[in-house]
């Protein structure tokens, strides 16, 4: 799957000279959504992706992680006409807020427009889906340093359950040695 290029990545790669340009086939995200989404179109997919990146910003997490949220929303929209309508109208409202495609707004403007909608069912749908789709993903766990399932590896008894070494160890009566 090709990476969608988001604004930050593009700018970091030295696209600064083009940052102010309105048009921009040069800055348009690449579109591999067409093959992946069934109900949302590529603009809606990219907008929702970027919105979720604003809701739960983790700059060092690539789009690969956030794509899962968009795909899960798309899947829900495929089964539920009300969700589909809510998502499409939500994207349209984001685009209408400043008369420019929301994905073309500055970071600050994107955040301001989205914040103004924070109590809307559309925002809550995105947030509620993302809080599970983004964080309930074993690849995301590795990103955050959470090791996930442990029983099949014998637990942490021999794998660092007490390996913290920047504080003094508690005394025996408070914390007896493992047997």
């Amino acid at each position, binding site marked *: 799957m090709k990476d969608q290029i988001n604004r930050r990545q593009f700018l970091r790669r030295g696209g600064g000279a083009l940052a102010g340009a309105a048009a921009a086939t040069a800055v348009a995200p690449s579109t591999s959504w067409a093959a992946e989404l069934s109900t949302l179109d590529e603009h809606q997919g990219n907008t929702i992706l970027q919105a979720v990146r604003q809701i739960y910003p*983790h700059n060092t997490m690539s789009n690969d992680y956030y794509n899962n949220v968009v795909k899960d929303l798309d899947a829900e929209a495929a089964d539920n006409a009300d969700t589909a309508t809510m998502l499409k109208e939500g994207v349209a409202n984001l685009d209408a807020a400043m008369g420019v495609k929301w994905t073309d707004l500055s970071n600050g403007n994107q955040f301001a427009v989205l914040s103004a909608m924070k109590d809307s069912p559309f925002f809550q749908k995105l947030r509620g889906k993302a809080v599970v789709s983004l964080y309930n993903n074993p690849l995301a766990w590795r990103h955050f340093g959470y090791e996930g399932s442990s*029983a099949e590896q014998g637990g942490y008894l021999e794998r660092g359950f007490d390996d913290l070494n920047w504080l003094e160890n*508690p005394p025996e009566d408070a914390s007896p040695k493992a*047997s």
Partner: protein
Amino acid sequence: MANIDFNDDSAVLVIGSGAGGGTLANELCQKGVKVILLEAGARHSIADFQNNEWNAFGQLSWLDKRTTSGSWRVAKDFSGLPAWICKTVGGTTTHWAGASLRIQEHEFKAKTNYGEIDGANLMDWPLSLSDLEPYYEKAEDKLGVTRTHDIPGLPGNNNFKVMYTGAKRLGYQNVHTGRMAINSRPRAGRSQCLQIGFCFQGCKSGAKWSTLYVDIPAAEETGNLDLRPESHVLNIEHDDSGKVTGVVYMDKDGNQQMQKARAVCVAGNSIETPRLLLNSASSKHPDGLANSSGQVGKNYMRHMTGSVYATFDRPVNMYRGTTMAGIITDESVNDPARGFTGGYEMETLALGIPFMAAFLDPGAWGPRFSRAMDNYDHMAGMWLVGEDMPQETNAITLHAEEKDQFGMPIPNVHFDDHPNDIAMRNHAFKQGSAVYDAAGANMVYETPPYPSTHNLGTCRMSDKAEDGVCNKFGQSHDIPNLFISDGSQFTTGAAENPTLTIVTLAIRQADYVAEQLSAQNI
């Protein structure tokens, strides 16, 4: 395994297989009493527990429809999930953390010791600590509670090290890895703790005590237990004399059954137990069974709770190992000079990434929240659990319109904090934060109460029939062969995690029930 006929009215029928019902059923079976044990949930096993927070939540939790009301934040953030408790053989003993503390002497006499508090329906328990002491001993032996019966304490994990350091620097005296129903050595045919770190998701080493793999198999071995999983009780039946005669339930095949019984013991946890009594209303008992006092469903308590999480400059990896083996008990005293009545415990707690995202600050989003998640592996955490005030208006009631999958009215859980709860939580947040500041935290987060894991008081014990639902043995005042066998019995909440006391009361209730059966009183 016994096979008790539907029309056999000689057995004791227990509803719910958790800390109360599972223990009671086993204790009665060991005495030769035949027991039918009806459990709404399915029978899982250690083999099918999953080290995965959302999967385990779906597998073990009570997710039947419930509604909430009141000013508590749970009603806003988790309006359909007032409680995080279980629907499975073993009940909430599959999910619990294992913290096993005795209620303190002064807490059993809350009214005498705390006095009149506006809006609080305080009352002394109709029993004392000395009544329970022999049974606490037995319960601690049965559960294998560390720091009792020559059982060593558990070794402290990284999360405990941070708590210990901060606590000691702040001047706390009583800080250790807790009194836990988790084997620190192999014991009673079960493994020692492997520090798996998924205590809440079902213990995959079996080191943590649960009725699922301790009491239920022991009861089955006597040949006196007839356990029926996926059997959801709809109604408790009674005759004209007012005695209960049995129950109507939906069996695992979706058929309605009527099982007769000599006595019925209700242990559905503090939401389902009163709901069942209310749903069993009849022309003779229009306000529900055993409800002459009007107190069925009322005085719902969930403990003052909250959490503090803190991030540090160096890694912690708090999720490695036991979820809750760490405690500071200094604040569990009653010291009104602090600005509130009653006390609270401070216990280590960790959540995985999936649940941290959902519960750290429900509804939160944006840079501050995301930065906390970015620092997850540098995070330590604790849970604050203290005595909340019983209020009559905090109550389980039947929803006026909504019905469950069987057509029975669903429960609504109404809760408002009492000013004392708010003052206590405020103090606890400050003290928890101070512990972590003393340990070198760079940021501290105050987390509101989760959907309630401690649910108490809705069929309270009392001396007088007009003040409560059952007597000091959990026997309902109104109906001699109807018993309350779970945490609904608690007259007040005390500061301590309730499971040890629920087990203790069940062991004692088993003695009483067996005596009453022998004497032909029931």
